[in-house]
């Protein structure tokens, strides 16, 4: 029986929070023990930013010497601002041992907005962060991150060409790809026997046989993927006519949706209250480990979907630039990178690392989409300022309850 408090609390305390979970931030509201425990591996909440030391050395390090070797004069400390459970503690320990770094501060944020807000507020005191690529242009414009010196990150050569020269950073100046994933369809394969390989098939099941048994993640950008791809449009379309058509589809879906939930959708899938879900791959590994929910399956719609790319960036006022470069290069050592994939459960853009990854993982669409789906992936551009999208989103949300 998956549905008891012990289980939920254990899950909350022990396991990884979905990468984009918002309620992790809501721990602020309750001072929740369980959610505090979610950020295990961090040395505390995001509130323990080393702002003082950062502010002190921010000015001094603004124009760093670019000529130092990767493993040059590495500082004794590194301040990282990252999603929770997103870098393997084993790798962190190995890094500390290799470069003699004594203090490795790993602070966490629950979403890109939190990271952005911190940077907008002034000197953050952090060296490196891992925003989603669609936020990188804003960070460049705001002057929060610095250009990377690739001569100090030779391991960049392992990055697959598909992850270079992307619209977010067309000249590959600022971002070092970290890992990527897709938005797709999670389903309980022991209940759902019908094929769900396209958005249209998914749509038919939601409004038909599995009405009231579908969860959508509470994320505007991801929800628009489905109607726009059904219409054969770009996921980033802001054409009024496209969005009007997408609105019709969303409003037809609304009465059939069980929940809009980015935080506990794995629980709803586990209890079979929901059998279909438009969501992210994050919770799948954990659901599979439980024999009751091992039938969880994931499909990357072949008519195209969104892929997100998280990237390493170096902050403008990084107090420890040498340690930062050492880390960025270290993390893309093939074996180190393979451990990252094993740990956080997201696909790596590092080709060489694949040699050290379990073939079962390599052939798993959860981590690495099949070739035909891969070809139709589209990177998300930040469209959150489009008024029409926002209006449709609000209308959709109100329609779900009504």
């Amino acid at each position, binding site marked *: 029986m998956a549905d008891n408090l012990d289980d939920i609390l254990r899950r909350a305390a022990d396991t990884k929070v979905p990468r984009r979970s918002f*309620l992790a931030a*809501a721990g602020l509201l309750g*001072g*929740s023990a369980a959610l505090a425990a979610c950020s295990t591996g961090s040395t505390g909440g995001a509130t323990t930013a080393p702002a003082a030391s950062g502010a002190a050395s921010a000015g001094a390090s603004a124009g760093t010497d670019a000529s130092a070797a990767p493993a040059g004069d590495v500082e004794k400390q590194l301040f990282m601002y990252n999603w929770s459970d997103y870098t393997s503690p084993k790798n962190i320990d190995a890094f500390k041992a290799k470069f003699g770094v004594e203090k490795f501060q790993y602070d966490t944020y629950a979403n890109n907005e939190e990271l952005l807000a911190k940077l907008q507020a002034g000197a953050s005191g952090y060296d490196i962060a891992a925003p989603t690529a669609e936020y990188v242009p804003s960070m460049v414009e705001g002057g929060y991150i610095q250009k990377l010196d690739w001569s100090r990150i030779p391991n960049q050569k392992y990055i697959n060409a598909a992850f270079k020269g992307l619209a977010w950073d067309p000249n590959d100046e600022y971002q070092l790809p970290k890992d990527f994933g897709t938005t797709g369809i999670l389903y309980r394969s022991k209940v759902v026997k019908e094929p769900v390989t396209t958005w249209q098939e998914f749509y038919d099941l939601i409004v038909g046989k599995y009405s*009231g048994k579908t969860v959508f993640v*509470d994320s505007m950008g991801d929800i628009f993927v489905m109607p726009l791809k059904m219409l054969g449009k770009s996921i980033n379309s802001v054409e009024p006519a496209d969005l009007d058509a997408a609105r019709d589809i969303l409003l037809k879906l609304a009465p059939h*949706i069980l929940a809009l939930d980015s935080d506990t959708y794995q629980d709803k899938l586990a209890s079979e209250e929901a059998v279909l879900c438009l969501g992210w791959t994050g919770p799948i590994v954990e659901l599979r480990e439980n024999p009751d929910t091992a039938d969880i399956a994931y499909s990357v719609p072949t008519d195209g979907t969104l892929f997100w790319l998280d990237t390493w960036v170096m902050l403008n006022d990084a107090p420890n630039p040498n340690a930062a470069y050492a880390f960025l290069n270290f993390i893309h050592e093939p074996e180190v990178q393979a451990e990252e994939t094993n740990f956080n459960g997201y696909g790596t853009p590092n080709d060489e690392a694949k040699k050290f990854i379990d073939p079962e993982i390599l052939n798993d669409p959860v981590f690495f989409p099949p070739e035909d789906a891969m070809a139709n992936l589209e990177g998300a551009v930040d469209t959150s*300022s489009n008024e029409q999208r926002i209006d449709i989103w609000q209308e959709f949300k109100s329609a779900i*309850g009504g």
Partner: protein
Amino acid sequence: MATAVQTPEEAKGIRGRGSSALLTTALIFPAGLWYVLLLVAPLIIVTIFSFGNRAKNGGYEAAFTFDNYVRLLTQTQRMEPFFTSLWMAVAGTIGCLLVGLPLAYFIATRATRHKGLFILLLVIPFWTSFLIRTYAWLIVLGRENVGGFIGSLIGDADFRILGTPAAVLVGLVYGYLPLMVFPLYVTLERMDRTLVEASKDLGAGRWATFRQITLPIALPGLITGSILVFIPMMGEYVIPQILGYGRTFLVGNALVDAFIQTRNWPFGSAMAVLLILVMLITITFYVWFVNRGRHGREVSVL
């Protein structure tokens, strides 16, 4: 008119008052500073922001425009969360009252020796995170427990409580009940019991005694309690998200969307200002209504 000449006693008195006023000022200063920095200043900032524009990459850009308010007030999908919040908060306050008044009355008047125990039982849940308590309701109301039980009673296998406004209401009443019980308890505890006995001696029935003695005495606590639960309920975010499955879309949820998903701080600020106005108007009306009733009753007693 008093003479301009001060007697020594008067002068001393004034000086005494002067230094005590200084002392009072000094004592109030930290609290005053707290009040200005953490209450007045944020309110002013929110109000200023509400007239601004969304910066290109989200956030706030200085401007003076009424666009945010116009958009808010003219689009039905923008106003809907306000109406949903309003009725949920009113229903939740009534629910707290229906549960809280008998409970407070019981603890104050009947639980003679165990008073402390009952108060403790009310307080203990506060030692646990609000989030965990809300998660616990997921199980209580779930299909394997209360939800499924009711479903089997009415013979509907698909019956659900979770994800409905009813679940949100249960969560609201549960979450804020102590804030209603304590003020009520304090007023009822101090109630002069001889008044009740006198009322009975004079031939009033239970209901008449309650209506004419207990209720008027409990009224200050009732007003305080209602306001204490109503305000946070209007801005509630976590309960509709967890127990309501994100299907009951309240102002709190709309605010999170504005600040986090669309990063439109000015629009979110306009929503926050409107929310404050709605609460002010509702509470003013409520206090006026209740006090008016009390005044009328006093007159009738006379």
